[in-house]
């Protein structure tokens, strides 16, 4: 046990303290003060994390636990408030506090002059608190607590501009859809507790192989339930429809919650519970298939968006699809590696988008932007570096190393179908990334907002962009998460056959995609516009623009039948039954209230009667 563990609680207590200070100020705090409290609490947490990481890396890197206290202890139900620190949680912790701090700093620039900035930072700090708890908890109950906490913060921040009811609706949608996943996760927790009698993660992973044979139906159910929870949180098919609408929140929120941290919680959950998934190989395969389907679906959808934040949202879905694909082939550490690089470059892209949006007076439609590269050089740099990493430009970007690793692992696991989906996805990624950059920064300026763009200034604006840009290059890929010993070995560790060939193919795909996109969007612009303006091209555009019509499908398939059912059943017998409970309760209340006459003689009579009854009972008892 090193000295580092005793400082560990600070990583979530500091943001919690920030929340308290901001919330208790009742909105009387100045903007400067709010920014100071909000940013410095996460900054200090990041410093503590750095300190702990250095100690951890210089030690033997073994997993450590810190049991703070036992919450309650009755029978064999003894949920502890305990923290576990290993390579996986320290990687997540670094992303949450490190990237989180940079985003908070950027938010200080982005949100300046906004109404309710104190509220904003209070929610953001609360989010960091919950997310850190999620990854540090040594038992599933604490994890679930963090899981719900980030859900509520996501809801609050999506609906931050609550005066527009559309934003409120988007927040509802995100909350309700992720809730479906949360119910599955809760059932999974109950199942694990009923079977193994513990919620401690280390104990579960240790006992599961002895308790269940591989492919046992109960362990498959447990894995399926966990998968359900992960799908909701990580916006994967079919619970993905909330993420694009979640872009209604301020852009730093999209960067922190809906790109870098919260949406990757599902990946973390599956990697953390790998012991359960390894016992259910068919469910694990399903994880990969869902990831592949999502990455393709979202890749096509991203091609046909015009809102720059929606393009990034679908791109996030698609990249998390890659992580699920990696999990599905058993390459847990590749998934976490991609999670990390993705956090860097997607945060960079979102923050750059935020810089564009603020500079262009909250215009985020690509059809009204254009030609900004000269006016907004720093944002342009961010988009170029982040976009290159997103489309996995060979050798110089972080995205290349992590994505190449995933493709290689799927080849090594002999999953040709998944590999093919990954390669097609890589091509799509290059296409929509180049379209996004060209549409935003090149060509003529298409509105006054773009023509009057004012570049951002100051440290708060520049520093996060530059640091994240550095991390998005090959420098970021040199950070190797210390995952050995935490997660099982990947399929690609035993062999090297075909790795170089695949690397070349993947690199070729990325470059070909970029070249194709550049040719299409720079040279063949009119032809493309003609193609989508009528005929089958237009239908395809609409289909992709609506992200394959899942919203419509769910509306027809679930929402409307449900409403019809509700309409039919509004006076059914079951309802009457529940109504009966309420009316009986009310009737009893009315009856009992009549005994409260206010007269002393009634009260005394009731005492005497009560005493008589007690005595009669006791006499009979003899």
């Amino acid at each position, binding site marked *: 046990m090193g000295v580092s563990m005793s400082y560990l609680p600070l990583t979530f207590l500091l943001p919690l303290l920030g929340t308290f200070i901001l919330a*208790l100020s*009742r909105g009387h705090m100045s903007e400067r003060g709010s920014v100071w409290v909000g940013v410095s609490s996460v900054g200090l947490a990041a410093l503590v994390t750095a300190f702990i990481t250095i100690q951890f890396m210089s030690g033997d890197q073994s997993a450590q636990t810190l049991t703070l*206290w*036992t*919450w*309650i*202890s*009755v*029978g064999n139900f003894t949920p502890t*408030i305990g923290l576990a620190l290993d390579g996986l949680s320290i990687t997540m912790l670094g992303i949450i506090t490190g990237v989180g701090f940079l985003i908070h700093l950027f938010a200080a620039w982005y949100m300046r002059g906004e109404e309710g900035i104190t509220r904003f930072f209070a929610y953001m700090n609360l989010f960091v608190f919950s997310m850190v708890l999620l990854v540090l908890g040594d038992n599933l109950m604490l994890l679930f607590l963090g899981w719900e906490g980030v859900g509520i913060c996501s809801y609050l921040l999506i609906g931050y501009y609550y005066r527009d009811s559309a934003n409120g609706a988007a927040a509802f949608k995100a909350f309700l859809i992720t809730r479906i996943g949360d119910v599955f996760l809760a059932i999974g927790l109950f199942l694990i507790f009923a079977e193994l009698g513990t919620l401690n993660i280390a104990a579960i992973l240790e006992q599961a192989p002895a308790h269940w044979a591989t492919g046992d139906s109960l362990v498959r159910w447990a894995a399926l339930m966990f998968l359900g929870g992960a799908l909701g949180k990580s916006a994967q098919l079919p619970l993905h429809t909330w993420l694009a609408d979640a872009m209604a929140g301020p852009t730093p929120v999209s960067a922190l919650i809906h790109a870098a941290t919260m949406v990757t919680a599902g990946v973390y959950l599956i990697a953390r519970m790998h012991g359960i998934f390894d016992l259910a190989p068919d469910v694990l395969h399903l994880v990969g298939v869902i990831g592949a389907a999502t990455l393709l679906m979202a890749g096509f959808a991203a091609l046909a968006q015009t809102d720059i934040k929606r393009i990034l949202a679908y791109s996030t879905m698609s990249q998390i699809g890659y992580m699920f694909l990696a999990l599905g082939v058993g390459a847990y550490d590749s998934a976490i590696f991609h999670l990390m690089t993705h956090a860097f470059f997607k945060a960079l892209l979102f923050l750059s988008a935020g810089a564009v949006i603020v500079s262009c007076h909250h215009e985020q439609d690509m059809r009204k932007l254009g030609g900004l590269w000269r006016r907004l050089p720093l944002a342009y740099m961010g988009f170029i570096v982040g976009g290159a990493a997103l489309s996995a430009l060979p050798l110089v970007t972080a995205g290349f190393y992590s994505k190449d690793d995933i493709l290689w692992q799927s080849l090594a696991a002999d999953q040709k179908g998944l590999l093919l989906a990954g390669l097609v996805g890589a091509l799509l990624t290059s296409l929509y990334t180049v379209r996004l950059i060209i549409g935003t920064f090149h060509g003529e300026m298409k509105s006054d907002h773009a023509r009057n763009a004012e570049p951002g200034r100051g440290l708060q604006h520049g520093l996060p962009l530059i640091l994240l840009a550095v991390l998005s290059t090959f420098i970021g890929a040199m950070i190797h998460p210390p995952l050995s010993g935490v997660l099982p070995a990947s399929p690609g560790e035993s062999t090297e056959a075909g790795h170089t060939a695949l690397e070349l193919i993947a690199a070729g795909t990325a470059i070909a995609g970029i070249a194709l996109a550049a040719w299409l969007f720079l040279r063949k612009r009119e032809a493309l516009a003609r193609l989508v303006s009528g005929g089958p091209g237009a239908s395809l555009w609409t289909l992709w623009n609506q992200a394959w019509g899942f919203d419509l499908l769910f509306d027809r398939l679930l929402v409307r039948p449900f409403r019809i059912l509700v309409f039919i059943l509004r006076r059914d017998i079951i309802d009457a039954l529940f109504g009966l409970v309420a009316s009986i*309760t*009310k009737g*009893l*209340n009315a009856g*009992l*209230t009549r*005994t*409260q006459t*206010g007269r*002393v003689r*009634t*009260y*005394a009579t*009731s*005492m005497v*009667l*009560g*005493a008589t*009854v*007690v*005595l009669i*009972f*006791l*006499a*009979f*008892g*003899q």
Partner: protein
Amino acid sequence: MLTSAHMMALTPVILVCATAVTVMLGIAWRRQHAATALVSILGLNLALVSLYLVYSAGDVSTPLLVFDRLSMLGMVLVLASTLACLTMSHAYLEGYPGRKEEFYLLMLCAAAGGMVLVASQHLATLFFGLELLSMPLYGMLAYTYRDKRSLESGIKYLVLSAAATAFLLFGMALLYSQSGRLDIAGLLAGLESSGGGAWALAGAGLMLVGLGFKLSIVPFHLWTPDVYQGGPGPAATFLATASKAAVFIVLLRIVMVAPAFHVEWLHTVLGGLALLTMIVGNLLALIQTNLKRLLGYSSIAHFGYLLVALVVADGLAVETAGIYLITYLMTTLGAFGVVTLLSSPYSGEDASALHHYRGLFWRRPYLAAVLTVCLLSLAGIPFTAGFIGKFYIVALGVEAGRWWLVGGIIAGSVIGLYYYLRVMVTLYLVEPGMRGRDAPDNWGMKAGGVVVLGLALLVIAFGVYPTPVIDWMSVLTSPVH
């Protein structure tokens, strides 16, 4: 013989009595509100400190009083509750036009009575303690006598309490006639050797009626809402906390040391009363629109839950009862404290109608937050103290296999959730145009404000980190048998 060890053990009680005398002499010499409050608070704090010293000195037993860990727990609870009530009285009485200082005198006397009661191991001290606890309460309840409701509340409590005392005395007489002893242990031993019999059982039943009245067990509960509503805020708070806690502790002591009363039928009757109490208490609160009455019904229901510990009366029962009592006390003190602060300083009837609280959050966010936390805790929501207490009670019922009681707790909690939430919603509604009674702007700077804020923090802290209290309980209550 009174030895120095006995004197040592008696120090906390003596200190409280001495404070009462000091306050009385002080009033005779010169009336000064702030000084009186200060002296009272100082005296109680001194008693708490001396309690710690006595506790570390070990158990002391006299024929009349016993200073063991259970009585220490009882004294701590009585003293701490009295302290909170006293602090709130200061804010409350600030604007009272009549004489303010006697209220403290009465409360100090009542506290001394409660301390004697929890330490009693003789029917004489039990009776003496109970009456010393109750008599000042009549005065406290009727203290703001220009308000008709306050007077009514005092008289009602006086008449009905006297009736209950009659039951209690008759029960004691019956027990004495059967065993010839008045000290509780000897009395029970005597009963055991003579085989108990119907008269002894009847005596026990009548004593239960007398004590059950103080705990407002159904069907001896009817006085509760009227008295709570009419009495001044601090008096009602004292009645709901210090008084009930002391009576419950003594009942717990009798049940725990009484193998003779481990008659299945007595437990069944007790269980029936518990079930009735939790259901009826919650049902009565359902559509109540007066917050003080609602809290009264809520306290009825909570003592229904607490009775489960007496019904089971083995294993973890004492620990569970202690934990539940502590959570109940801090929560109830917080909730009543907010009501008291909003009615402070005194100017006529207390702010207890629910419409006074509409939109409270928008003008007094901290007070609304405190009340919210307390209501959540009363409802037993996780991460508040109330959840821990309720969890232990449910676990106790489950382990003892008393499924019908567990069912009652669950049904009661469901009903409870409805009316607690109803109050909470009111706090956050849009503020109506007109303003009713309101706390002064600087309430947070005053001692009363600090106390309610501290209580709310305690409720949350204990909900998240209950270990210290649980450990304390398991140590404190271990040798009682």
